[in-house]
């Protein structure tokens, strides 16, 4: 099983490139077992939504 640090790196890269299937799978497996990394993944999702909202907020 990969470490939290590795899972975090994959999660961050997924924001900016298509992550290979094998890496995505190892990240998902890790997240199943790790609540910290699940929370981190949700934080990233919130940041993604916040960025989108901010872009539009800038243009209101």
């Amino acid at each position: 099983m990969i470490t939290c640090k590795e899972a975090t790196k994959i999660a961050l890269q997924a924001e900016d490139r298509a992550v290979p299937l094998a890496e995505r799978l190892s990240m998902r497996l890790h997240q199943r077992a790790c609540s910290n990394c699940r929370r981190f993944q949700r934080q990233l999702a919130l940041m993604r939504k916040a960025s989108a909202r901010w872009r539009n907020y800038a243009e209101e």
Partner: protein
Amino acid sequence: MTATPDYCRQLEALRPVLLKYARLQLRNPAWAEDAVSETLLAALEKPQSFAGNSQLKTWLVGILKHKLVDQIRKNSRELSTTAASDDGEDLDDLLFASDGHWRETQHDWGNPEDALRQTDFMRVLEACVEKLPGQQGRLFMMREWLELESDEICKELAITPTNLWVMLHRARLRLRDCLQLGWFAGGAT
């Protein structure tokens, strides 16, 4: 629509907000001034292309985004030479122990909608983006605000994809840290 005095006043009134975004993107006051001046000049010369069915600000921000990409292109050599010098310290070592585990328990940020509908949250977000080190901030803005694809950014700045991902990795971790401290830890939600 012609360039009436009223139109000119409206343009002038929107100058500060355009400048704010230009500075956030370029991290260079002189280039930001140029991009904003070019934007306002374009708006003055072609007032008829403002259809009036969108807000003036939306239209101007659209022009500004093109002018910002122009500025990035024009200054790409200088940007790529400063690329590695101001990226700040690596957060990874602060966040993770040597065995690769999180040093601290990660926080639940709750329901996104609770935070996102608050104007104050957007202010904190903006302040956190502003605090990113120069090149990290620039790359983050190119990706999230100008909505450029990774390969376009690499091409414009003549950097490798690996370098871009490292910088965005750092920027996103830093931003997350700032949001945690500036918003979620305060119990503002």
